[in-house]
């Protein structure tokens, strides 16, 4: 029973990793960033490339991936997303186009493949990143044998969620972001530079996706299309939890991950996945504002 719950917990932590960044961008800015999964993918490729070319350890690439994807997110906000504020469904479409561009950039090795140049670690094939020695094997905890890397992911996810919470609720930037969530016009009237804050928020959300990518590179193979399904799961978590509510996102990730694991154990893998989709549909139908939400705007 406890090992099932632990599998659920590790599924939850992966969902939360992807959803954290989305909770920030979608919750705060109303941007449906379909390229979020590709940010995770880019983060994973940062881990692959720095492992091949720089020989760095998986843990050391976490800050590097954060910086790369945050910079990418910042550029994206400046170039594309900024032009689409207030056109919610259009952001969904434009970022879908960007997602395709990012995938193809990796597949075509940034266009180098046209000139016959091949970069090791890029291209459409599968890549793998070795996990550091001390995270391999299992860990004895409360009389259970748990996979060390999964325990590590759960811990890192908790730390990241804590940091995100701290940024949003205990820093001047977070204060501005929360003001914008409640009412962008009023926030602007109070002297908050909405555009600059949004750009930083978007960069932050993208950076979180990059870190998620590094962690995922440790337990699954990395490929250009790995992000496509993730963004859907991430959105379901954010919407189920309630837009703009960080605690809601965390709770929803926990609930959906556990439902998936429990149903999968008692029935089968497909039933587990199906029950998650069903729960999401029911939550939106019965509580369109999400499980945990406040009245805003």
């Amino acid at each position, binding site marked *: 029973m406890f090992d099932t719950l632990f599998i659920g917990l590790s599924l939850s932590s992966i969902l939360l990793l992807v959803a954290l960044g989305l909770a920030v961008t979608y919750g705060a800015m109303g941007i*449906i960033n379909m390229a979020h999964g590709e940010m995770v993918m880019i983060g994973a490729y940062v881990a692959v490339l720095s492992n091949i070319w720089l020989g760095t350890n998986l843990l050391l690439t976490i800050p590097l991936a954060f910086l790369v994807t945050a910079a990418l997110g910042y550029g994206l906000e400046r170039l594309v997303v900024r032009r689409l504020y207030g056109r919610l469904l259009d952001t969904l479409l434009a970022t879908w186009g960007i997602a395709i561009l990012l995938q*193809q950039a990796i597949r075509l090795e940034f266009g180098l493949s046209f000139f016959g140049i091949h970069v090791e670690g890029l291209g459409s094939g599968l890549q793998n990143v070795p996990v550091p020695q001390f995270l391999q094997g299992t860990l004895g905890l409360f009389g259970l044998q748990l996979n060390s890397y999964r325990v590590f992911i759960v811990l890192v996810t908790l730390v990241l969620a804590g940091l995100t919470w701290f940024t949003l609720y205990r820093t001047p930037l977070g204060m501005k972001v929360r003001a914008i969530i409640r009412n962008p016009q009023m926030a602007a009237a109070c002297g908050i530079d909405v555009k600059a804050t949004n750009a930083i928020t978007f960069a932050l959300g993208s950076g979180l996706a990059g870190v998620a990518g590094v962690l995922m590179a440790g337990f699954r193979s990395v490929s250009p299309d790995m992000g496509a399904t993730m963004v859907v799961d991430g959105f379901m978590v954010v919407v189920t939890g309630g837009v703009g509510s960080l605690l809601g996102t965390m709770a929803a990730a926990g609930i959906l991950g556990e439902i998936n694991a429990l149903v999968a154990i008692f029935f089968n893998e497909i039933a587990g996945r199906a029950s998650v989709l069903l729960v999401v549909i029911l939550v939106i139908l019965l509580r369109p504002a999400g499980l945990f939400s406040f009245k805003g705007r």
Partner: protein
Amino acid sequence: MTSLLTNYRIWAYLLFFAVLLALPLTGDDFWLNRVAKYLCFGMLGAAIALTWGYAGVLNLGQGLFFGLGAYAMAMPLKLASYTSLQQGSDQPVPDFMLWNAQPGASTDLCCITPGSWLWIPFQSQWFGVAMAIIAPVIVATLLGRLIFGQRISGVFVSIITLALVLLARLLLVDAQPLTNGFNGLTDLGYFNLFGTELDPYAVTTYYVITIALIVVLVLARLLVATRAGTVLQATRDSQTRALYLGYDVPAYQTFFFAVSAAISGLAGMLYVVVAEFASPSFLDLTFSVSMVVWAAVGGRGSILGACIGAILINVLEARASETEALVEAWKAIVGLVFVLVVIWLPQGLGGFAHDMMRRLTGRWRPEALKQEVRQ
């Protein structure tokens, strides 16, 4: 004043129809078959324009309706296939069912695999045709009642439809003994239309699909011009206002949602006739999003524009895929064009053409442009 305006619209439709009807003159059977497939996608574009452009409802699960139509047609065609007649039973039985059957099970359609009795009515091709339309309409009506009755709108509708199509895909793949799972239904027979077998590469088949597309476009265009269509656009622009004016908003939205589903079911059905397969990939998320891309590039606010957008993108893609190096680059180009269109041409090529015609006919009113579809 409006007569001139409607005139060039009518001319655009007529020109498009004339091009489609004249295409077999090229005499290239291979391309005719391909274009016939893309005409089915054109119907999907029109279906998306109907809900997205006119109702403001972005359905990210249109593939569900397309898939329902496709499977409803593929089932009778599978039974009509010669492979189904060679299974040692006096009745046609799909080959994959025999592979899945328990040893010693009766090789009758009633009980060869659990649930195989569902296939019995599909021995009639016309039952398949009817179900290809009716099943999507029933699903859309129930779903529409639920969603719009709760006054759920905008992105939440998109997420629900998206979750639903993924759920349906899972169940479809899981029901392997009934649907042949991942492999889908292949080796299909020909559809028999009043004694004429519809060979996918025959000109007759092309004309059947062209005429279906013309009927769909004309009916959809007439439908949005009715009073109901006007009310629908009012609900798109402001749901609350339409509600306070006394209109039953959910009823209008559900009705057009169901019409769009019927068109998609028809498209799926005809696609199976020319493509000779049905597979769970029709319910992939990427396919449903692709339809939205076609409609967005063609022009979400114009039924004809969205339809032409779908056909054009697919023809170009087919051309590009003939050159090995272009296959991957083509996807990047589509992505880039799509981003640019969303930012600078929110009304797509159709909206652009419309503005150009207004300029040429001297009816240029910049303020009319400001009325973009929002949310």
